[in-house]
């Protein structure tokens, strides 16, 4: 099954909508609640990253009986130093964004922690692609 969600940069008011939709789907599919939690935590984090940094983005979700694949592609500034951005506690969120309650400073490392497979590629001034895979069994 395939679902797509468009994300607008700067639209904090709607940040989290895609995560909510995906959560509902997984509940309907009777996926274990602990797995749903991992999906939602990583997707939400990634979704807010797009809202906070990029101009726009798209979330592509593929679900089959074994796994969920989340692909997040954005157009934006990109990440110059991925290893640095992957460090625990490192957040690219500006202080203003953090003050709004977004981006608890866990960022990418938190996504990786919750994912079974995690890939990231990024080009400065072009955009970032994330691939998150979580297995159901």
């Amino acid at each position, binding site marked *: 099954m395939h679902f797509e969600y468009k994300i607008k940069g700067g639209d904090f008011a709607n940040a989290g909508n895609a995560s909510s939709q995906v959560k509902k*789907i997984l*509940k309907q599919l009777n996926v274990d609640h602990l797995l749903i939690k991992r999906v939602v935590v990583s997707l939400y984090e990634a979704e807010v990253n797009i809202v906070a940094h990029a101009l726009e983005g798209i979330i592509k979700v593929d679900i089959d009986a074994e796994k969920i694949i989340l692909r997040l592609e954005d157009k934006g500034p990109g990440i110059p130093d991925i290893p640095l951005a992957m460090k625990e506690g490192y957040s690219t969120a500006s202080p203003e964004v953090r003050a709004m309650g977004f981006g608890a400073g866990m960022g990418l490392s938190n996504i990786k922690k919750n994912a079974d497979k995690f890939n990231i590629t990024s080009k400065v001034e072009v955009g970032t692609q994330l691939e998150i895979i979580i297995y159901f069994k």
Partner: protein
Amino acid sequence: MESGYFHHALEIIEDICIGCSHCMTVCPTEAIRVKQGKAKLFEDRCVDCGQCYHHCPVNAIRVAHDDFNDIFNFKYRVVVVPTVFIGQFPEEFSTNLIYNTLHELGFTHVIECGPGVELLMEAYSSPVQKARPLISSFCPAIVRLIQVKFPSLVDNVTLLKAPLDIAALLIKKKLTDSGIPEKETGIFYITPCAAQIAAIKNPQDSTSSLFNGVINMDLIYNKVYSQLHKNGKKFSQQPERLHLSKEEIEWTLTNGEAVHAKGRSLAIDEIHNVIDFLEKLENETISDVDFLELRACDQSCAGGILGTANRFLTVERLRNRGANVKSNGNGHSNDEIIQYAGFIKKHLATEPIKPQSMLKLDEDMLKAMNKMKQASEIMRSLPGVDCGICGTPGCSALAEDIVRGNGRIEQCIFIQRRKEQTGTQSLRDSFYIMEQIWGRDKLE
């Protein structure tokens, strides 16, 4: 891993139901449909919040409780009273007067919910459970809501007994300690809502054995009021006994618990507010909250569906009562609880809460996926106006009913018109389908 059906205290009386669908529209968990002109309940979805009861214009929904005369099956008849019951009466009726009247009605012992609250306060200030935020298990409608709609939060619910269970436990222990055989004692609870009945009667719950029966608050209110009139308020000059502490009196009100929790705590009342908040919490968009007090009713138990007084006046009375208690600083109501503290502490824990998700389309994931595909195809042909004429709360509810085998697409009035236009359905068929939903009399 998941447990079976709930016990429900709510019943739809078919003979009275006029099939107006108000209950279906307000139900926060989409647990109601209209079929054959009558409201029908999906038991696995209902959380006993009582919204339907509250909105039914003809009182077709009943809260089933035990016969009052059941109390006389016991030699010792204990009534456990929630503080909001006292709050039903105008302040000119003293607490003592209401106690006395309950005695006159046949109870040998009257005990208000409250003792033991300080043990809960203690537990809240140094919680053993690791999950954050902790969600209070006080309101049974909320516990059920979490089970059916937010299963990923079940581990956040506190595993602690509610004050009513503690009160029952305490009095039971006291009476047996004084040499009264257990079978001679009947313990009855005056309930402000359907959710607490369901919790008490739930065979899965180990505390169910604490009570021998439940009496609805509106019924006992009438009995007490009639008795007071008969007596001409002759006790009304008696001074208040004031045996509960401020904390105990206010526990059932909004923010009664949250103020005692460690760290950052929030109190949220009314079920739709709670659902909004839990959606966000489940998405992890809310962090750093340590404790949540969540109650299904507006103004918490003062707004329970079996209340007769205006809920704001009930709150006012309880706050006034609390303000008049001289605090001894430790929340203790009396010394009795100190004597039994060890015993209660030993029994304070409840069993873990199991998820009981109502959202799944099928147990089997592959089947659920197929059903979801079908449902989204069905959604594409439905108009998306959520008119409710199909007898469900909205288009997506109909689509899900269809793939679950509980409905058919022709229930939709738009589909009917389309099919009549193309000649694939006769007017008579449409008429028959509408009759199946709304009953014959509405179409004649």
